[in-house]
């Protein structure tokens, strides 16, 4: 199946490229159209072949086929069926197969929808086929998922890494990969549009939904990973600035920059070269992320995915960069901007600065990720670049970005008058200052603690941004309400329907602010650690934890030790928590299962750290993490906002219906 997939993808690439070249050379359809059509169909068939391969691997996992080395190393008989399914992406070879399958799946949709623009789709299809060929070469020759295990057939498998046996792990990698792989599509369209000197900005319209959906997948993948880390790793945090986490953040930052700056190209025909390089960089950063994960170039907690295929990715990255540079140099005159900025104080200018900050943030993350390698090269010894570095360097950049999130939408396209600035900014400024004062009255001490300073700034700026968004909504809704006579709520809904992109974007911004508020709560985390016996108490914040019992249990997959803790808040019983420590026999590894009571105010996060060997009593660590739930709520708001932005606006339909209505009236009156 994999070989068939490779053959079909190679055919799609070569036949597609030849057909496009013939068409360009002769500028007439001399049969190249039919050749191109066979290439398109071969691309569709490659999806079917890869689907067969992916199904075969999952089938092997479910039937405990330990003659397949990958299945032997990543599953065992007692493994939960959901995790057997997840075995597809639990190791190197399987996750590469998932990558290739998703790539052909995206290609499948693109090729089915080729009528939106046949030639541009043909270019994009051929470029996607080129990327697919690379991954299928890897799967066939460097990391084959169906390699046969030598020696006698094992009775049971080695099991799945316990850290991966968690519901989020069934969803986190596919979502992340949907994001990573998805950026191949706008990349292919951008490169194709540049190759064929595509007139106008229609390619942006075609790829807009692709880019937004891809961005949403990447966002969900990142936050699902953060939730997994929070729920499984048991250190009370959700983001450790690990190189592999950073690798997913970098394309997200450039992708976000692209989503913003592409609006300038759409609306004003500006920043064409910039946008092309943004999407090229985003794609290259997804490849770099995979390189970092697989090559072992930098130390990471994701080291289980390391192997020797890094050199393939180095080669591919260089090849992609050279192709992009070559095409850009040849066609750069096609990317001349149609308009120039008219004022420093304008929406365009704010987009430019937004892009600048996002790219500086991306550079900072890349710099921090690669600095250990650089340090080893220059000083002969590796340095660790961990959370303290990013907290000092990246957080101020993030706060500045938050500031721009509030400012940008308040500025008009082309130029903003001082009067408009005064009118739009007065409320958000008041909200910002009032929040800061209010927080200081509520005993937030920014002068005492750096994290409290950041937190205060995040809350205050967040309040400013939310006020700006709400005032924009209210202003628009009032206008709609005046026009239609509807109440404020109905008018707001109608406002959103009329300009889904704009107001969907505002909802996404709102979600980002909610997430930042959740993150800013981290400045007020509390934790305590204590050995507990029967009836012993642990006090943290408003909670009291009383140890009811501690015991052990076992099942075919793992042995477990856990404590039962009754939780009281201000003396009133609220729930019982059971933090666990598991030992997985197949993989001979330990795992911590966190017990968490989450409320909007804070999370009570409890870990069973182990037993004191002298007393035999459990050691419990409890965290009180304020506002964490808002991070996950913010993600839901982002999903909502993205769906709104993706929905078609009703304005054109209304306009069209009005035209039809007018024509009908005219015809009727003629009668």
């Amino acid at each position: 199946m994999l070989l068939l997939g490779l053959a079909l993808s190679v055919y799609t690439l070569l036949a597609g490229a030849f057909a496009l070249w013939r068409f360009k050379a002769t500028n007439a359809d001399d049969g190249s159209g039919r050749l191109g059509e066979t290439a398109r169909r071969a691309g569709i068939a490659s999806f079917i072949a890869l689907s067969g391969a992916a199904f075969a691997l999952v089938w092997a996992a479910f039937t405990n086929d330990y003659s397949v080395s990958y299945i032997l190393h990543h599953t065992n008989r007692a493994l939960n069926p959901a995790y057997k399914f997840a075995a597809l992406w639990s190791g190197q070879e399987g996750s590469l197969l998932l990558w290739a399958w998703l790539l052909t799946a995206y290609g499948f949709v693109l090729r089915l929808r080729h009528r939106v623009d046949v030639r541009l789709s043909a270019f994009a299809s051929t470029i996607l086929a080129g990327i697919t060929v690379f991954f299928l070469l890897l799967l066939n020759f460097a990391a084959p998922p169906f390699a046969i295990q030598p020696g006698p057939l094992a009775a049971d498998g080695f099991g799945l890494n316990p850290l991966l046996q968690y519901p989020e792990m069934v969803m986190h990698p596919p979502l992340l990969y949907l994001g990573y792989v998805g950026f191949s599509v706008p990349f292919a369209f951008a490169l194709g549009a540049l190759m064929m000197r595509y007139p106008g900005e229609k390619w942006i319209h075609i790829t807009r939904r692709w880019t937004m959906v891809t961005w949403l997948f990447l966002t969900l993948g990142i936050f699902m990973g953060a939730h997994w880390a929070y729920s499984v790793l048991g250190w009370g945090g959700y983001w450790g600035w690990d190189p592999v986490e950073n690798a997913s953040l970098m394309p997200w930052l450039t992708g976000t920059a692209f989503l913003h700056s592409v609006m300038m190209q759409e609306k004003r025909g500006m920043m064409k070269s910039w946008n092309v390089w943004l999407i090229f960089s985003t794609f290259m950063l997804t490849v770099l992320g995979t390189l970092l994960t697989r090559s072992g170039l930098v130390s990471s907690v994701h080291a289980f995915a390391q192997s020797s295929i890094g050199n393939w990715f180095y080669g591919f990255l260089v090849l992609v960069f050279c192709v992009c540079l070559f095409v850009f140099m040849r066609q750069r005159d096609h990317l001349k901007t149609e308009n120039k900025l008219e004022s420093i104080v304008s929406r365009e200018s704010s987009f430019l600065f937004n892009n600048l900050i996002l790219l500086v943030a991306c550079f900072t993350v890349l710099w921090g990720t690669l600095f250990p390698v650089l340090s080893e090269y220059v000083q002969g010894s590796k340095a660790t670049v961990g959370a303290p570095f990013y907290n000092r360097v990246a957080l101020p950049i993030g706060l500045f970005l938050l500031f721009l999130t509030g400012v940008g939408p308040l500025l008009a396209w082309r130029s903003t008058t001082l009067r408009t600035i005064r009118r739009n900014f007065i409320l958000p400024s008041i909200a910002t200052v009032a929040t800061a004062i209010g927080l200081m009255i509520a005993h937030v001490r920014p002068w005492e603690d750096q994290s409290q300073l950041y937190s205060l700034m995040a809350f205050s700026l967040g309040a400013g941004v939310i006020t700006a968004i709400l005032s924009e909504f209210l202003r628009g809704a009032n206008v709609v309400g005046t026009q239609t006579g509807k109440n404020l709520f109905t008018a707001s809904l109608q406002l959103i329907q009329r300009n889904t992109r704009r107001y969907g974007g505002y909802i996404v911004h709102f979600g980002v602010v909610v997430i930042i508020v959740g993150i800013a709560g981290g400045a007020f985390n509390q934790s305590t650690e204590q050995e507990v016996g029967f009836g012993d108490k642990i006090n943290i914040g408003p909670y009291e934890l009383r140890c009811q019992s501690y015991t052990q249990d076992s099942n075919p997959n793992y042995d477990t030790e856990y404590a039962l803790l009754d939780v009281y808040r201000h003396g009133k019983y609220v729930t019982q928590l059971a933090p666990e420590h598991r030992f997985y026999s197949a993989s001979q590894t330990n795992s911590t299962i966190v017990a968490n009571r989450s409320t909007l105010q804070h999370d009570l996060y409890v870990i069973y750290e182990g037993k004191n060997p002298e007393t035999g009593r459990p050691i419990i660590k409890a965290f009180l993490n304020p506002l964490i739930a808002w991070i996950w709520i913010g993600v839901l708001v982002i999903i909502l906002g993205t769906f709104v932005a993706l929905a078609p606006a009703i304005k054109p339909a209304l306009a069209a219906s009005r035209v039809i209505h007018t024509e009908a009236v005219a015809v009727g009156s003629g009668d």
Partner: protein
Amino acid sequence: MQIRSFMHRFSARVVRHRMMQLCVVLFGAVLLMAAADDTGTRFNKLGHAMMCACSCGQILLECNHVGCPDSDRMIGELRTQLASGGDDTSIFNWFAAKYGPTVLAAPIRGGFDTVAWITPVVVFLLATVGTALLVRTWVRRRRNTVTTPEGIPVQLPENDAVRERIRRETEY
């Protein structure tokens, strides 16, 4: 009267301009203040500035996996070092000498490590200044237009724009 009105408007504009600059400077200052040292407990601060040596990739005070061979001992060593009255740098040096430089959670050894901190700031400043200059150039170019008697805007080449400015400035 006109001059006074112009001066009034001019001074108001300058004041607004200066106020804007002041706001930017204050905002920058607040951001820089963030880099100032906190006054929280030194144990917590230093414990969060070092990694556990067990290769789990966790900050020393956050390493909590069962059977960690290093974190308890290292935390004890940190307490001992603090009790002995050494300053932060000497404590970091002691740990770096014993466990290697990767025990420090951020590059703080001086020398080439400083580059890690400076580079993002330099890139940020260069990018900001570069973007500001670019925007200014674009806006100025945009303004280099004259309108024909028929009311059609014509883009002036760079030299013509300079000549036009000189003509205006030397006009009586």
